[in-house]
């Protein structure tokens, strides 16, 4: 049983102090939102998904066994909610471009390359995108990733390796195509 700050809060929430859930939301909202944003690639939808995930977490808080970290459990909810949403509503390429405007704010020199990277990531399978997204969120250990993806750690390691290779291959193809059109 985990006895960290989250665990103490959870016990108090379950004992009736439900307003304390706001503290858990405050603590984990950035990460939950960022995870949803990386999977969905649309700010408004990502926020909606993050909110829904917190509501689900609250609803099923009593069933949370506290054998793992609350954050890992929450991210699994966010991840599953986002993946389900993505399957139901295919995100358009335009929304990714809009998203890029938000966080690619540096020099125009590498802008093309960044655009190609975004394209390459988008061409990865849903599963590879998810794996690679979680991998680059460096706060997660391989074991935590395994728990979120509900696969053994070794399988996750192999999946990350393959996804990275695929990404490199796709990027290479895109760059080759671009060089030919110039």
């Amino acid at each position, binding site marked *: 049983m985990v006895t960290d700050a989250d665990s103490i809060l959870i016990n108090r929430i379950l004992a009736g102090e439900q307003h304390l859930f706001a503290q858990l939301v405050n603590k984990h*909202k950035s990460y939950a939102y*960022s995870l949803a944003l*990386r999977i969905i690639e649309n700010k408004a939808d990502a926020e909606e998904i*993050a*909110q829904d995930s917190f509501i689900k977490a609250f609803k099923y808080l009593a069933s949370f066994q506290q054998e793992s970290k609350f954050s890992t459990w929450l991210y699994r909810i966010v991840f599953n909610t986002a993946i389900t949403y993505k399957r139901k509503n295919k995100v358009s390429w335009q929304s990714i471009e809009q998203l890029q405007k938000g*966080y690619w704010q540096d020099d125009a020199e590498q802008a093309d390359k960044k655009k190609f990277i975004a394209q390459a990531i988008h061409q990865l399978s849903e599963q590879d995108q998810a794996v690679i997204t979680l991998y*680059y969120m460096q706060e997660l250990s391989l074991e935590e990733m395994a728990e979120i993806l509900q696969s053994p750690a070794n399988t996750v390691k192999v999946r990350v390796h393959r996804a990275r290779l695929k990404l490199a291959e796709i*990027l290479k193809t895109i760059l080759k195509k671009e060089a030919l059109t110039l």
Partner: protein
Amino acid sequence: MSVGKNFKREDVWRYLDHDMSEEEKIVFLAAVKTDKNLEKILEEENLIRLHFTRIKLSEPSAGFTNLVMEKIQKVQGEFSISIKRSMLLLAGVLVVTLLTAFLVSKGIFDSPGTIKLPEVNPVVNQYLPNMPEASQFTINNKIVVNGIIILNLIIGFVLLDRTVLRPFFQKRMRHS
């Protein structure tokens, strides 16, 4: 996939993941300086990493927490029944069940009930003056009432589980 003379793309990942020893790092960085292809790959992989790590800094809207808490309150209001209300419901179910069982034991529902279609709806008689005997139904009142009692008991048990037993044992588990 080979990158440079000695280094593969996997080595670039190892460098970026901080999995290289200090000696390896020195050799790798020296190779980057001399090998344009390796430099290109490193730049690409770095950009990929950047693509993900920059978005990590994203923050949801300012009212995010309040919105979540408001939604939670709304959801709770929709689905939860207060303990007082659930106890009243449970008492109601019990009273109805006991009352019906008492009436059954007194033999109130012992006589079978009969429904005659022509009596229920005179229009039937108009169109079918020679109604066969099938138009007359006999209902065993005792079976019907016993069925209602059983249904009431099931509802009572579900209510007892959801509103009293489950919260009680969950509370005990948390405090153990």
